[in-house]
């Protein structure tokens, strides 16, 4: 399990152990990875984050066009595993979770423990510090630091 910010680890750890999720990815609404459990490759992780964010974005757009409230979660049910994709608001802005689970658990359990994790994240989030300006010179260094934090390399 890896996270860019340490306060995310405990709620995510609790969620993973209680829900028996195989893979979990937390990202910002723009697809920037915040924390992950179970992914082994940077490429898989970045692709999953980009696709997850795109799915949430397109489904929100469908809801907007139909004049419906935005869908909060989506479930892709497969024969041996399923994907649960949901957005939620945190003190750090809107985040998205992508959870992959198998037959060792069920959708209801994933949903119940997911809601618990959202509450725990809201409680654990430190008070927001003012956003610092991102300079091009810092970008590559920060990107490498993020990848090291997420994969330990």
């Amino acid at each position, binding site marked *: 399990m890896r996270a860019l910010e340490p306060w995310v680890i405990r709620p995510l750890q609790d969620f993973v152990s209680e829900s028996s999720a195989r893979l979990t990815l937390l990202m910002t609404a723009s697809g920037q990875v915040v924390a992950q459990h179970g992914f082994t490759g940077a490429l898989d992780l970045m692709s999953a984050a980009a696709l997850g964010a795109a799915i949430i974005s397109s489904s929100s757009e469908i809801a907007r066009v139909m004049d419906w409230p935005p869908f909060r979660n989506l479930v892709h049910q497969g024969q041996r595993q399923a994907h649960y994709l949901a957005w939620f608001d945190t003190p750090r802005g809107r985040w998205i979770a992508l959870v992959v689970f198998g037959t060792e658990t069920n959708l209801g359990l994933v*949903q119940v423990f997911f809601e618990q994790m959202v509450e725990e994240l809201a409680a654990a989030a430190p008070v927001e510090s003012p956003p610092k300006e991102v300079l091009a010179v810092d970008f590559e260094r920060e990107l490498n630091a993020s990848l090291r934090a997420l994969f330990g390399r």
Partner: protein
Amino acid sequence: MIRDYKALLEPLTRLRGVRGAMVVAADDGVVVVDALMDGMKGKALAALAAALASRIVDLSTRASFGSARFIQLQAAEGSLLLVPATEQLLLVTVTGRDVPLGLTRLEMLKAAERMR
């Protein structure tokens, strides 16, 4: 076969000591229909009941007992009763202490039969 699951739960929830009943999707652990007393966490109960039923049905089959027909989890303050009604649906009843468990069981099996 009955499709009005809400009506199916009525005879169960009228029994003394029954705090609620639900029809739950067996694979997903998601509530299909419920009749629960205020304050009961239906979503969590449904998810945990389905997870429990799935393991017990698996255990029962592996032990060559055949598929489980009725599951009773009795605790100090009440009981959780489960009937795998169909392959997809689970009938769940929550009771308090000192309830007529035999009658509740009978009503659950009758309700499950109507779901088939």
